[in-house]
């Protein structure tokens, strides 16, 4: 009788232990101390707690206990499992030695592999969503350009993927992430273990770039590194495609190709390393006690502001489109040719952003990654309030709720929430998004009328201005509730902004912004200045007036339509 009782007790404890281990919340040795789940549920529902039963002494699990667990029989499985109760049982645990059968080591290894598998799949799938954002950018930018440049604009958005990917594979990824290890979510990423650093202010090491992962060769031929590469590559490509919008309708395709590769190989990876690859910005907290160092959860700075300041550099170098400004410097409107394409593109981008921000946890299991729900909601809210604010602004100022600025407001809110999405609450997200929606309207006017920089799609304002705002907002609104494994950038505790008690975090964020404007812009400008001298950045005036589709691409975007120029360079479509 006693033997039967002990066997029953061991079976119950084994079931509990298996459940906990699968949840990744249990140490290697498990003790049977809690009642079965059914009893817990009944106790919670009861109006008055029953007297506690005498707790049996803990009994360690052995390999022999595991052998007592029986899975479903083959005959039962052969009948099908419509309810899903027979699938995913002890039968499905991988056994390392068939002679020994299932052991505790097998069980624990399975739990570990399940955690990493969940994180790898999560990161890959969200990376695929971010990749699809290229379609959104292509639609937005092409729709906001004139019909005579549709093929050219679409092709820039299409080919930036290929040009950027190649350059990033050759060297960009290595410079950015070559020294980023360790990363517990993706299995350690141990091969990415070499960061080049110099001693700078106060004799502290300043990481400048990584040194592992060129061509993804050698030890970086690793499952975790491959996932990291895919995810980081689609982020880089987002930054690269921002520039094509600002320089649209007058950018020589060959120059675009070289410039995009320069951004993918040099500009983006350097800042990405400083912020995400273990470089000096991320260490401002550990080295100088500035909060948790520069914090940019998903890339308001790394992706969007890098793209935005690069777009500003290229736009300055190639100058405005013919007809954009009158002799007295006043701007002429040059509306795009397809607002429906623009708004559909914005929706695609908003959808992809659910990969951008929640995916930046680089996992869904362990290390505080269950915050992905909060991150997704923040993303949703900020995009919503961004579009609301910009439409409201345009409605009050110009009497109509401008559609293209509504779309840009949505993107502005999404850009701004990208850095703080993992650190703020929903109220913070709403404020950040709303401010971005207002800011993008003001910035578009400032860039067009004061700076007289021609930006056909508003990329400098959406990604540059609102990217900087997003970086700063971390230093204001981070609420100290996030806990990604107990620390961030090597500093224990949660990230807090000025409004939640840590003003030093704001200092780190301001330094990040100064780096974007002072260093990243300068690198981008110098690179593109050089390209301008070598191959010329701008198309000839005749090509520009004709439209770039035929001179640059050899085919019209809309061959079935006759394009009639209307006013100053504007074209309208007339069906044949």
């Amino acid at each position, binding site marked *: 009788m006693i033997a039967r009782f002990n066997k029953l007790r061991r079976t119950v404890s084994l079931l509990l232990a298996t459940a906990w281990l699968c949840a990744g919340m249990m140490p290697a040795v498990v003790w049977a101390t809690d009642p079965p789940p059914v009893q817990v549920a009944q106790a919670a529902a009861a109006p008055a707690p029953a007297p506690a039963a005498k707790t049996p002494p803990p009994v360690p699990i052995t390999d022999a206990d595991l052998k007592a667990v029986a899975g479903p029989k083959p005959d039962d499985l052969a009948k099908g499992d419509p309810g899903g109760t027979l699938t995913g049982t002890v039968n499905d645990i991988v056994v390392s030695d068939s002679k020994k059968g299932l052991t505790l080591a097998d069980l624990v290894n399975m739990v570990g592999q399940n955690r990493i598998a969940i994180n790898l799949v999560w990161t890959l799938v969200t990376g695929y969503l971010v990749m699809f954002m290229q379609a959104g950018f292509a639609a937005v930018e092409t729709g906001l350009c004139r019909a005579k440049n549709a093929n050219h604009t679409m092709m820039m958005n299409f080919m930036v993927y290929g040009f950027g990917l190649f350059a990033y594979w050759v060297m960009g990824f290595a410079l950015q992430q070559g020294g980023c290890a360790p990363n517990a979510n993706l299995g350690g990423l141990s091969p990415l273990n070499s960061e080049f650093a110099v001693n700078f*202010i*106060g004799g502290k090491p300043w990481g400048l770039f990584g040194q592992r992962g060129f061509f993804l060769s050698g030890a970086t031929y690793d499952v975790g590194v491959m996932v990291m590469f895919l995810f980081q590559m689609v982020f880089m490509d987002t930054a690269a495609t921002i520039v094509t919008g600002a320089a649209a309708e007058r950018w020589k395709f060959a120059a675009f190709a070289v410039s995009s590769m320069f951004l993918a190989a040099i500009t983006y990876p350097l800042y990405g390393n400083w912020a995400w690859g273990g470089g000096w910005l991320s260490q*401002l907290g550990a*080295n*100088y006690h*500035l909060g948790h160092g520069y914090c940019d959860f998903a890339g308001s700075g790394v992706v969007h502001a890098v793209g935005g300041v690069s777009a*500003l550099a290229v736009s*300055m*170098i190639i*100058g*405005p489109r*013919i007809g*954009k*400004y*009158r*002799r007295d*410097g006043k701007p002429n409107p040059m509306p795009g040719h397809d607002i429906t394409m623009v708004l559909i593109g914005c929706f695609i981008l908003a959808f992809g952003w659910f990969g951008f921000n929640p995916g930046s946890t680089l996992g869904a299991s362990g290390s505080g990654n269950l915050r992905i729900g909060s991150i997704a909601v923040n993303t949703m809210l900020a995009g919503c309030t961004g579009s609301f604010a910009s439409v409201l602004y345009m409605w009050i100022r110009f009497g109509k709720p401008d559609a293209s600025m509504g779309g840009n407001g949505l993107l502005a809110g999404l850009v701004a929430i990208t850095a703080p999405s993992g650190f703020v609450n929903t109220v913070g997200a709403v404020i950040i998004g709303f401010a971005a929606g207002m800011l993008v309207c003001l910035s578009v006017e400032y860039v067009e009328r004061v*700076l*007289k*920089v021609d930006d056909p799609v508003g990329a400098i304002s959406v990604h540059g201005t609102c990217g900087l705002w997003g970086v700063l907002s971390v230093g204001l609104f981070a609420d100290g509730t996030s806990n990604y494994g107990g620390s961030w950038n090597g500093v224990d505790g949660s990230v807090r902004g000025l409004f939640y008690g840590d*003003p*030093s975090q*704001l*200092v780190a964020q*301001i*330094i990040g*912004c*100064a*780096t974007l*404007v*002072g*260093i990243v*812009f*300068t690198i981008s*400008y*110098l690179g593109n*200045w050089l390209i301008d001298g070598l191959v010329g950045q701008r198309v000839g005036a005749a090509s520009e007036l004709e439209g770039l589709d035929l001179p640059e691409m050899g085919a019209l975007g809309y061959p079935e339509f006759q394009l009639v120029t209307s006013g100053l360079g504007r074209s309208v479509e007339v069906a044949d």
Partner: protein
Amino acid sequence: MRVLGLVIAVLGWLIAVSSVELSSVGIQALVAVIGLLVALGGVLGVLNGAHLKNAIWKS
């Protein structure tokens, strides 16, 4: 003028990062903001001004 604008932009960054070892957080923030503004002035003021001098719409 273009080079001057870029030099001022980098100078702004140097001012911002020089704040890291200052004692007070308030002073750190002030110096960092000054650095950011100097960098912006170099890019949007001096460098862009150089581009506007020879802007295509003036010819």
